[in-house]
């Protein structure tokens, strides 16, 4: 498995790391910066991570996925720092002999990452900014 916190997402590297002669299906999910959120125009995002703990949590999730599905490859990259509209901020990649496993594991990994990995997103709008999810 290849787990990293990076300044720039590298989709080609992720695809290379998923390559395996035994894999027939490769899934990539890329989370990108959307121009709107909560009905507001977004100007940019800033991501911050508690890096050692984020890597540990990502590894836990990855191990869970490997136990649940027969995976050939697994990649999780999350970016930190300032990101503009359209830029990738996270890539989740899975590969397996048959596509059922890679699809299911890819979905599981991004869902779990969003729930437990200590990474924080600050959304900047025209007039203010907020830490996403911080308040009810």
């Amino acid at each position, binding site marked *: 498995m290849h787990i990293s916190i990076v300044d720039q997402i590298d989709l080609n590297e992720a695809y290379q790391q998923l390559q395996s002669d035994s894999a027939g299906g490769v899934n990539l999910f890329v989370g990108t910066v959307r121009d709107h959120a909560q009905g507001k125009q977004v100007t940019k995002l800033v991501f911050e991570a508690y890096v050692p*703990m984020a890597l540990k949590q990502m590894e836990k999730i990855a191990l869970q996925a490997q136990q649940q599905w027969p995976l050939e490859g697994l990649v999780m990259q999350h970016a930190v720092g300032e990101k503009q509209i359209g830029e990738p901020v996270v890539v989740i990649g899975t590969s397996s002999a048959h596509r059922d496993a890679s699809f299911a594991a890819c979905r599981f990994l991004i869902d779990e990452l969003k729930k437990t990995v*200590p990474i924080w997103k600050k959304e900047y709008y025209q007039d203010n900014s907020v830490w996403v999810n911080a308040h009810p």
Partner: protein
Amino acid sequence: MEILLFGITREIVGQNQLTVPTQDRPETVGKLKEWLAQQYPALQKLSSLAVAVDSEYADDAQPLPSGAEVALIPPVSGG
């Protein structure tokens, strides 16, 4: 005791790290949360506030040995 701060907790406290005075030193995660609630009432308005000890989520009963790396984990929003 030093507490690492991230995201909105850093803004609420107004520093990158928080020092708990020796005389207030909490013995457990639960005690630390009580102390924080008193010192920084704005922390109670968050959707949730977890504490990590040595890079792992910790429950209220968990002790805080000296030398442990302690961090506040406000609601995460990665991805």
